[in-house]
């Protein structure tokens, strides 16, 4: 659906590749690459047309600042101040004077041009290696003007991919729960926004409690828990049409839903008679399968990216720990053995790591471990934080954090945060209201 709206033409201009720049992505933000993002040049006629359509004074500058912001927040790049730029945007895009860019210590340069053609937005951009004095990449896009923010994100993804060798994560969205009101009577609504916090949209009215929304692989559907009519059940929401439907007909509370990697099944917990087990439901033929059968609490299931395994949370040992099993429920193996309680395991899209929440000595941690449980690394510690969700490239985790209240029970807040897999570059993602339960979409243009 998203793709239908977003008619995008990618024209790849082939170039010789002798890239000398390489970003070391294993070290996080210790040594971010200095990059100059020259404002996209724009002719006066196009500028005026876009000002009329989009109410933006200079769309070229706006798109560049999206790119600049994305590169900065990744922690891997250091976009240089525009005040130091010596060359005008249009000339830079035509033929950069590399000595000038070298002088301000830029190692990479991004230039480009915006045109208004047949009521469409046409953007071309180029990535230059300053030291080698070479063009590294040149691309052009044509789309409807309203997609201008996405164009900025797509350019960011292309630059990120070219310089790091990994897919980007900027042309993505976050589904989350927007919250307000006193802690004892929180009002919660599903909300969606771009990865950078723009284009916020509330999706439900807040008449009933909603929790834990998660995208399907194409990012068009969301599965979540709703307390509609005081019957907590797993629901499906079509983001484009707004259609909601309950998933299956279960004799008790269904919760903790996620999609299978092929998007065909929903995996979730069913709580009944004091025990919670894991079930799947096929969305096409509605066949329900029981995956675990144990008197304990089995919840928070998450598939491996190949769909062959499931990681989940169980207290069958007496306390909350992380387990993995084959997707048919066989070969259950406990993998967390450290001190403390472990919850909400989420399999990395790369397949090699499991992110989790850990509670130890009154503190909450977001951490990662290998799928055999070894190599546990705690990325961040706080009073309360949980529910990590992976960026589609498996590089960044988003989660939510709640504050401790004072003696009078005041001062509660819930905010979204992200952190690099290395444990560096922790940052808050600002939202119009309080926020929790974030889930990261896949790359929208792919």
């Amino acid at each position: 659906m998203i793709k239908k709206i977003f008619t995008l033409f990618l024209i790849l201009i082939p170039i010789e590749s002798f890239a000398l720049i390489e970003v070391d992505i294993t070290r996080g933000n210790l040594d971010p690459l200095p990059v100059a993002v020259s404002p996209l040049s724009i002719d006066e006629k196009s500028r005026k047309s876009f000002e009329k359509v989009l109410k933006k004074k200079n769309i070229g500058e706006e798109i560049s600042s999206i790119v600049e912001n994305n590169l900065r927040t990744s922690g891997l790049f250091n976009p240089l101040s525009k005040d130091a730029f010596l060359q005008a945007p249009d000339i830079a895009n035509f033929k950069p004077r590399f000595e000038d860019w070298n002088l301000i210590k830029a190692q990479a340069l991004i230039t480009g041009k915006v045109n208004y053609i047949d009521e469409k937005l046409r953007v071309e951009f180029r990535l230059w290696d300053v030291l080698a004095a070479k063009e590294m990449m040149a691309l052009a896009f044509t789309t409807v003007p309203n997609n201008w923010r996405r164009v900025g994100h797509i350019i960011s993804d292309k630059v990120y991919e070219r310089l790091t060798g990994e897919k980007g994560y900027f042309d993505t969205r976050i589904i989350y729960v927007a919250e307000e009101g006193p802690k004892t009577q929180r009002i919660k609504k599903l909300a969606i926004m771009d990865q950078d916090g723009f284009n916020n949209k509330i999706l439900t009215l807040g008449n009933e409690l909603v929790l834990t929304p998660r995208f399907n692989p194409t990012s068009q559907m969301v599965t979540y828990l709703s307390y509609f009519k005081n019957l907590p059940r797993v629901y499906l929401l079509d983001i484009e049409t707004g259609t909601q439907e309950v998933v299956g007909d279960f004799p008790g509370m269904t919760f903790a839903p996620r999609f299978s990697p092929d998007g065909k099944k929903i995996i979730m917990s069913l709580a009944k008679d004091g025990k919670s087990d894991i079930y799947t439901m096929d969305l096409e033929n509605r066949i329900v399968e029981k995956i675990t059968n144990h008197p304990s609490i089995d919840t928070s299931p998450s598939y491996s990216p190949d769909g062959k395994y499931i990681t989940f949370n169980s207290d069958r040992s007496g306390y909350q720990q992380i387990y993995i099993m084959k997707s048919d429920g066989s070969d259950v193996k406990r993998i967390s053995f450290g001190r403390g309680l472990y919850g909400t395991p989420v399999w990395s899209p790369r397949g090699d790591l499991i992110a989790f929440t850990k509670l130890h000595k009154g503190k909450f941690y977001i951490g990662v471990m290998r799928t055999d449980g070894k190599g546990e690394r705690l990325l961040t510690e706080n009073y309360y934080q949980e529910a990590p969700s992976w960026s589609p490239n498996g590089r960044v985790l988003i989660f939510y954090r709640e504050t401790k209240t004072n003696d009078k029970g005041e001062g509660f807040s819930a905010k979204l945060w992200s952190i690099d897999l290395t444990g560096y570059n922790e940052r808050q993602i600002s939202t119009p209201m309080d926020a929790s339960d974030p889930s990261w979409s896949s790359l929208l243009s792919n």
Partner: protein
Amino acid sequence: MTLTKIFKNTLLILTACLVLSACATKKEIATDIEGKMQGDVYTGTDTVKYLADGVPDRVFFATNESILTTASRETLRAQAAWLRKNSGINVVLEGHADERGTREYNLALGERRANAAKDYLMTYGISSERISVLSYGKERPVDSGSNPLSWSKNRRSVTVKAN
């Protein structure tokens, strides 16, 4: 020889002092909430409402537990007696957890707590058809504080009239 002995004794006394003083501080903390908590189960009446005279509406749990305490069983027996007398009344048992746990696990834990209460009511003759169970996890705390006493009030199963 003697010197070592003296030294050893002094050390022993020193250690004893340290242990004692540590105990003293611990006791002080405990007295702060004395009368309101036993172990970490809430025993006060701050948040408790009554279904009828002498019939409290809620029972409390220890951290991560769904075991009914002696006091909880007494409360539930009173509820069962009241329900037997009022055979037209159905109830919802609302299970809750404190904020010190992950959201999804707490949903399951709230359900397990409410079911512990349900099972007990059933052993005292209340038909399962009159009881439904609803878990709120940590979503509806009764006390918004971030301290052990507040958490103890929030770990609860509340019996609510359904009709």
